[in-house]
């Protein structure tokens, strides 16, 4: 009976019980082991920090400012929303080249609805206007996505071809809606979805959101721990849990603090004060923007998509299919139905992004979303979604979108010409995927 004991003592593989205490190597490694943080994700955050600091220095200190970061967050939303859906598509070894064109046609549909068709029935300025327009956009997006999905799953036409066709066809359809005429302006409530001075929720509501998010973080850590204890699984050390909680809450509060430091333009604030009979104090009235509405929408979508991909059967099937579609089919999963659902979701996300884009421009144009498919795919891939299938995260894609947008905005800020911008973004995409390939090889 002593033999197994000897064997365990010399066993170099940490058993699950002492995995946390095992690593004798450096404090960083110990920290990462104990917190079970994803090193890949940390690497991305580090890369993002590098990009930000770099641009800050080279742009003469105008990059890391509340104003620029706030604008960056708004500009990222549309791409990030679609990137969360692109993750599921690429994870199942499909691709969607049509998202930019679908965004275009849906933007036109929603624009025409609120500017020309719905007013005949409910009158301009009706509070129902934005709800109905968005609902119609979502329904149309779902129908377009489902159509793509059915052709891919049941008629067995490769996704690349179907969505390449969609790329051309839907861009044409966007033109067809009004034979190329731009539709403007949008409904006032609808326009809030695009951000802008009024399209943000203000300082108090932003702090409430922050408090809520922090509460959810703490609750999530606590309930996860309770659940693992119930089944006697190995637990993270307490200090690691606390560190995680503090870091996550601090990041949340910092982001909201930045949004709340960006004030309304003084003229707008003065007009607002006059209209509401607020006395203007010495040195001007400070009204904070707070979190922008499109950013809030994007965060909501990201949370929902994370939930769908990690905590539902559908999400589990998506990842199982990506690793080995044949095995998923043999396990009894209706892979065709799952494929149709994935593309339907993508279509609906195009509608959300279409609403954000249209609202931001305060106009529906048939060129909206041009080149978006490239940025959306790039965001997902930079965020760690693998073209080999089965691997990818929603959070990574959102970060990827932020990295892409940071590069673009930073170069605009520095006055880099558009052609050079495209060259840089193209090179960064290839290098990022190459680095990721290296990382994965070493991780194996």
């Amino acid at each position, binding site marked *: 009976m002593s033999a197994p004991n000897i064997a365990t003592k010399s066993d170099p593989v940490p058993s699950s019980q002492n995995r946390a205490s095992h690593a004798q190597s450096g404090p960083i490694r110990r920290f990462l082991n104990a917190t079970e943080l994803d090193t890949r994700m940390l690497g991305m955050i580090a890369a993002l920090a590098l990009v930000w600091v770099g641009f800050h220095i080279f742009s003469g200190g105008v990059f890391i400012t509340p104003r620029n970061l706030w604008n960056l967050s708004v500009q990222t939303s549309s791409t990030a929303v679609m990137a969360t859906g692109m993750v599921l598509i690429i994870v199942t070894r499909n691709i969607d080249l049509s998202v930019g064109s679908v965004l275009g046609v849906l933007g036109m549909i929603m624009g025409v609805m609120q500017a020309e068709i719905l007013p005949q029935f409910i009158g301009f300025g009706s509070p129902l206007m934005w709800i109905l327009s968005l609902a119609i956009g979502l329904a149309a997006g779902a129908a377009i996505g489902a159509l793509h999905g059915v052709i891919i799953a049941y008629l067995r036409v490769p996704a690349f071809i179907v969505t390449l066709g969609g790329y051309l066809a839907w861009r044409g359809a966007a033109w067809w809606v009004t034979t190329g005429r731009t539709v403007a302006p949008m409904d006032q409530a609808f326009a809030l979805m695009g951000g802008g001075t009024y399209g943000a929720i203000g300082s108090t509501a932003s702090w409430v959101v922050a408090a809520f998010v922090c509460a959810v973080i703490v609750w999530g850590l606590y309930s996860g721990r309770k659940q693992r204890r119930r089944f006697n*699984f190995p637990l993270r050390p307490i200090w690691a849990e606390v560190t995680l909680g503090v870091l996550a809450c601090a990041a949340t509060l910092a982001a909201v603090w930045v949004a709340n430091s960006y004030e309304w333009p003084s003229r707008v604030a003065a007009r607002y004060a006059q209209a509401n009979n607020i006395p203007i104090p010495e040195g001007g009235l400070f009204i904070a923007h707070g979190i922008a509405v499109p950013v809030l929408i994007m965060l909501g979508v990201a949370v929902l998509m994370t939930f769908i991909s990690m905590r539902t059967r559908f999400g589990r099937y998506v990842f199982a299919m990506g*690793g080995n579609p044949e095995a998923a089919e043999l396990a009894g999963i209706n892979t065709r139905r799952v494929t149709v659902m994935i593309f339907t979701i993508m279509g609906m996300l195009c509608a959300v992004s279409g609403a954000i884009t249209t609202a931001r421009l305060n106009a529906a144009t048939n060129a909206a979303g041009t080149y978006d498919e490239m940025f959306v795919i790039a965001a997902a891939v930079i965020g760690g979604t693998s073209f080999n299938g089965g691997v990818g995260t929603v959070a990574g894609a959102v970060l990827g979108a932020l990295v892409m947008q940071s590069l673009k905005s930073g170069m605009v800020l520095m006055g880099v010409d558009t052609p050079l911008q495209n060259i840089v973004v193209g090179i960064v995409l290839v290098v990022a995927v190459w680095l990721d390939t290296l990382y994965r090889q070493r991780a194996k």
Partner: protein
Amino acid sequence: MLEKATPLVELQHIKLAFGGIHAVDDVSIDLYPGEVVGIVGHNGAGKSCLIKVLSGAYQRDEGKILIEGKEATINNPRDAKAYGIETIYQTLAVADNVDAAANLFLGRELKTGWGTLDDVAMEAETRKIMGRLNPNFERFKTPVVALSGGQRQSVAIARAIYFNARILIMDEPTAALGPQETQQVGELIRQLKADGIGIFLISHDIHDVFDLSDRVAVMKNGRMVGTARTEDVTKDEVLGMIILGKCPPAAVPGPGAIVDA
């Protein structure tokens, strides 16, 4: 005594062709509750294709499938599972990028009261069953792509036996297993048999087949050479069936048997 009951499964005159290749040609075979039927034959004889027709992975071109005497509709793996047919495929067919628990419960996930995946409960169940099957198994959090061949096979076996199958199909279940794990699977087969489960066992190990099966069925070039009770024939006679297609007197000849001149 077994022969009097209704067979659990009857495959009648099954045909399956890929282009011009007759992978399965007019094969009939049956299986009784609590019985192990070994299916043997050379490489490419059509064993895997035959059982894939039963498991719903392939759609047959001709023939009938009866479950407990009633004609069954099996057009996909979901249909087969609904009849209580579980399969361990030769190619293992595991989902590479998810972990052992996710594979075990794939398609039949446990849910919490909120309707979300209950990963912790699934991991707990997986730890239990793997403890029985492969006590050395430790890597519950790793995607199965990173597991060894034998570990993957353990996962595939666990998945097939966990859900109270009535009919179990095992295509080379021990091909990648070490001696201890192979022995454990042997024990497992005896135990399942005692529970009244019918098992089709495909194996190239003639000793294993004689050890575990009540009957043996021999296929050659897509056709059935014959079936025999393992106690009525010798290993050499079965080898003769496999290699030459010659049916000994104690066996029931099938359409693929060579008639002695």
